[in-house]
């Protein structure tokens, strides 16, 4: 009796101890812009983290430990992001950092993380230099700015084979840098840039500039615009019957459903670069999209898919890591080789980048008034339409 009691007591103690170990949560603070101008994207990223967190914990968490995320508002300001991260590394001793949205904030956080030898996984920030500074502890899942249109370029090189290109862009930082990158890449690919014109955002009438484009007769018209200008441009291109061999958009305004709603039949067959679409055949992509839409009633952008996938990358690295020490986690991240809803994740040192995930960016084409993934062909949800019919012959 006594022996049984002792045994029971020992058992109880052991189970209580192991239960305690079981309940040990991994608490991670997440800096994000939850107020201010970037709040919309911060919100998408936060919601996507939460979906991933729920799923990971439902599957048993990281080595049995639950992930707990504490969101902290950086207001999209680099100095606030910096102080949040300083606190969570120095005071809370958090061994790994991730999130932030704008490139400016990500740069600030990357500098802090590198200085304190703490691994940092960037989400969605596109500025090239973040992973070009010989940082050992900074990782990035998304392709950087310079690779944004790489899928589109490969589509052009393999299918369209254009000789000439005209570039129209909005006179903002975003438009200008997109146009510069394209002009450089196009020249490298042997295309002649016939025309590179900027316009003032909110212009009513693009016909003067478009008739100039028509006279130049380029093979490809590449446009970097937000959604309303994108729709107006395509509508007026249709009206002037400019028959370029390919109409291409540099993501942003061209890649969202509102573009098709506004440009209507003028949007047909327009291609655009993008980073992610729910049609990609990566495991979990469609499920994530449906779950997000069902839960929040809106459609997530690629930022959301990145956030969702990046938490999986973190969880994977933590579960492979030898300990919860910074350097062990860093080594585990470096050894990452997995499939996510966003695509394959593997951090490489290549072409002047460190710990950068290289992947093929996607090309979408509007076919039947819907965006379809057409390139790379292995991810395609529909066969591309090329050559596109001349305006005169449509309908």
């Amino acid at each position, binding site marked *: 009796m006594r022996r049984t009691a002792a045994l029971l007591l020992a058992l109880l103690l052991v189970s209580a101890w192991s239960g305690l170990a079981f309940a040990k949560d991994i608490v991670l603070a997440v800096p994000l812009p939850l107020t201010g101008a970037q709040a919309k994207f911060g919100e998408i990223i936060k919601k996507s983290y939460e979906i991933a967190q729920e799923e990971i914990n439902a599957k048993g968490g990281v080595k049995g430990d639950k992930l707990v995320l504490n969101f902290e508002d950086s207001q999209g300001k680099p100095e606030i992001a910096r102080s949040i991260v300083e606190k969570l590394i120095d005071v809370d001793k958090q061994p790994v950092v991730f999130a932030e949205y704008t490139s400016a904030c990500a740069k600030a956080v990357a500098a802090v993380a590198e200085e304190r030898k703490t691994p940092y996984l960037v989400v969605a920030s596109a500025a090239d230099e973040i992973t070009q500074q010989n940082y050992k502890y900074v990782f990035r899942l998304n392709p950087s700015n310079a690779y944004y249109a790489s899928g589109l370029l490969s589509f052009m090189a393999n299918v369209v084979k254009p000789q000439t290109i005209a570039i129209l862009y909005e*006179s903002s930082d975003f438009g200008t840098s997109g146009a510069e990158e394209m002009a450089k890449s196009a020249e490298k690919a042997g295309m002649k840039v016939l025309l590179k*014109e*900027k*316009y*003032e955002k*909110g*212009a*009513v*009438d*693009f*016909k*003067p*500039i478009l*008739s*100039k484009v*028509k*006279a130049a007769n380029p093979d490809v018209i590449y446009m970097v615009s937000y*959604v*309303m200008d994108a*729709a*107006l441009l395509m*509508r*007026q291109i*249709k*009206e*002037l*019957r400019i028959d370029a061999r390919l109409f291409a958009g540099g993501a942003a305004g061209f890649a969202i459903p*509102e573009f098709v*709603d*506004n440009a*209507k*039949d*003028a949007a047909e067959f327009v291609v655009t670069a993008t980073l992610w679409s729910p049609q990609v055949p990566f495991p979990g992509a469609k499920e994530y999209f449906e779950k997000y839409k069902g839960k929040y009633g809106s459609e997530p952008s690629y930022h959301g898919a990145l956030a969702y996938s990046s938490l999986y990358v973190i969880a994977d690295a933590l579960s492979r890591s030898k300990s919860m020490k910074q350097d062990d986690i860093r080594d585990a991240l470096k050894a990452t080789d997995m499939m996510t809803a966003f695509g394959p994740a593997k951090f490489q040192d290549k072409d002047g980048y460190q710990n950068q995930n290289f992947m093929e960016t996607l090309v979408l084409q509007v076919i039947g008034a819907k965006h379809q993934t057409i390139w790379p062909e292995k991810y395609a949800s529909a066969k591309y339409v090329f050559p596109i019919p001349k305006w005169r012959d449509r309908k």
Partner: protein
Amino acid sequence: MWVQLEVFLQTLIAGILLGGLYALIGIGMTLILGVMKIINLTHGQLMMVAMYIAFWLFSLFHIDPYVSLLIAPPLLFLLGMFLQKALINPVLRVESILPHNQVILTVGIGMVLQNLATIFFTSDYRSTPVDYATDAWYLSDFWHNAPFELSLSYPWSVSFLLSVLITTALWFFLTKTDTGKSIRATAQDRDAAMLMGVNVGFMRVITFGLGAALVGAAGCLFIPIYYLFPALGSQFTLIAFVITILGGLGSTMGAILGGLILGVFESMTATYVGMGWAPVGRFAIFVAALVFLPGGVASLLKRKAVSK
């Protein structure tokens, strides 16, 4: 050769069509300026309000924006009369340090309208995707062996013609009707008009309503070819202001010509200088008009009439 001609003609067409619409925006401001002697800096915001009316009529009841021309401008007329009666008239009566605080008041009204639109309708971009948005007539359809191709957009042309029609109707109203004559009399000499028995206060209210209705009509003509967001007003206030200065303050004929000149000038700048230069061009023509032609196009017209 043909290609260059095509570019030139297409640009000219685009400029004239745009100019016709600009003229309608300018006339409303000019009219208010003539009668009230104040620049109405909430003009573009009134246009934004009319565009929202047209937008909601389209998305809720599927009423074509051109049909809204019968609904939005009368509503804007009432709104304009209300603004004048309830807000501007009381300020006109107050003596103040600043001689033009009615002008400042119009800026304030514009801000309120814009912020109300942001609160109620969010700052999202809206548009009325009509079916005929990209339809056009082509030269090659009428002349089969045309050496070059020109196109004339269907909605742009309809908007232009309606703008001309409204302008003509306004001209008839101002020259043939008693009310119109009273408005012109008030514009020419307020005191004399008052002595002749014109109800000057009432004419002011009517004029502000009329100006608002005209820019409201311009809004209905713009929305099928453009889009809409709450902050769109200031851009068009500026355009109306430039046209008013260019046309000669308070001259209706001047505003029409001013609008056409600005439209063609902007299009030509876009084609032959660069589209990024359009706002610079607009400003340059504004300064040039002030320096070299202080009376605007109207002074040229008058000079010609005198020499005849």
